[in-house]
């Protein structure tokens, strides 16, 4: 990815950023997150179909460099996370230098070759393959039809079930959760310094991984993403128990769309959905 390395070197030479968060290939050929501090390290940067991680998570986890901006390599879905963090006043636009990539989809399994069928689910309904907020835009967009989105099918199936059947589905799914909190750690929008699950006086969510505690954990995490989740599918990717977590957050996104015609992280000047209200919000369900 010569274009990327050239730009990164130029950024360091002209002191446009202090560090660049990007991807590199390790010795075994895996693409993984990497932070470059100077032009020499910039040589190691890469971008390809296996660049799955949403690097925006580091923006709130890293200490801010004293001597300049944080540069970040970002795909469309990552840009939505960056936009969301700006909307939520967690970072300032001026503090980041965004090196955006036109994206043709990513593949989760590092051993699989890219094809448009085996991309992550999110790529199949992505609407931001060309980022909308950046300092540099690199890469070529290939023109292709997006294949069928299999998650939508499962979603429809769940919605058609009776409440009891839905409960059974989720009981068996949540029953598997081991409360490792990887879903939270990887989420760019779970930046709370103290998560509700760590509050112990009183303790709202049981920390042991009982089905009951798992229910409250997974429901509250999903609720905290209401109107906020930007659909990067990182939570589901990292879940060691393969719980289809994005079904819940995608459902929240669908409600945001249906009730408020709102999508988070699309425009940095838009006020957040859950931080505001309207006197004409729907109240058909309230007696």
């Amino acid at each position, binding site marked *: 990815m010569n274009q990327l390395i050239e730009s990164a070197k130029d950024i360091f030479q002209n002191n446009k950023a202090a560090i660049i968060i990007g991807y590199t290939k390790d010795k075994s050929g895996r693409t993984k997150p990497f932070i470059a501090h100077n032009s020499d390290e910039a040589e190691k940067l890469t971008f390809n179909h296996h660049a799955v991680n949403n690097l925006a998570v580091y923006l709130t986890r890293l200490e801010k460099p004293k001597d300049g901006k944080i540069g970040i390599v970002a795909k469309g879905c990552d840009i939505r996370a960056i936009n969301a963090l700006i909307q939520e006043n967690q970072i300032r636009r001026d503090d980041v230098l965004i090196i955006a990539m036109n994206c043709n989809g990513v593949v989760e399994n590092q051993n699989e070759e890219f094809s448009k069928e085996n991309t992550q689910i999110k790529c199949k309904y992505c609407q931001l393959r060309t980022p909308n907020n950046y300092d540099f835009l690199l890469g070529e967009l290939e023109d292709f039809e997006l294949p069928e989105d299999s998650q939508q099918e499962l979603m429809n199936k769940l919605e058609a079930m009776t409440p*009891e059947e839905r409960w059974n589905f989720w009981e068996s799914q949540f029953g598997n959760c081991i409360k490792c909190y990887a879903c939270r750690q990887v989420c760019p929008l779970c930046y709370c310094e103290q998560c509700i699950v760590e509050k112990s006086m009183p303790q709202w969510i049981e920390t042991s991984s009982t*089905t009951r505690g798992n229910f409250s954990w997974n*429901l509250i995490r999903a609720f905290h993403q209401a109107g906020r989740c930007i659909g990067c599918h990182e939570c589901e990717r990292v879940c060691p128990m393969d719980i289809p977590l994005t079904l*819940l957050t995608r459902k*929240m996104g669908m*409600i945001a769309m249906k009730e408020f015609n709102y999508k988070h992280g699309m425009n940095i000047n838009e006020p957040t959905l*859950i931080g*505001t209200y309207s006197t004409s*919000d729907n109240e058909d*369900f309230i007696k």
Partner: protein
Amino acid sequence: MEKVEEKFEPKIAAFVCNWCTYTGADLAGTSRLKQQTNARLIRVPCTGRIDPVFIIKAFENGADGVLVSGCHPGDCHYNAGNFHARRRWIFFKELLDFVGIDSSRLHFSWVSASEGKKWVDVVDGVINSVREKGPFTQYKKINREFEIPLETESKL
């Protein structure tokens, strides 16, 4: 001995705001209006104070249904608490429905301090709806996941 068939009486947790619904329920009492007694009232300052985690906690503690009630829009003692709450409920009720806790167990209402009669209607309606739905056996099952069965306990 013949086992007596016990009639199911639902347990309802009602989260009500201090300024409107609680006072409305109080009015129902002082006016001596007749109402069913299955609801346990939990008084909070404002509907905006009701974190959805409260509702989950209520189910964990054996509630068969939950009612959330506060001031009518525009009447909030803190001006906008109920507007913020309403926006959150839109998401939360759909989320609970999506995991199988449907609207027959989770109810919302606006009841003002002068609406003693409306309170009676609302609370009776909620109790009837939950009674019809039956005990929340599914939540009760996960609540008891690690309970030691009585027979085993006596052997210990």
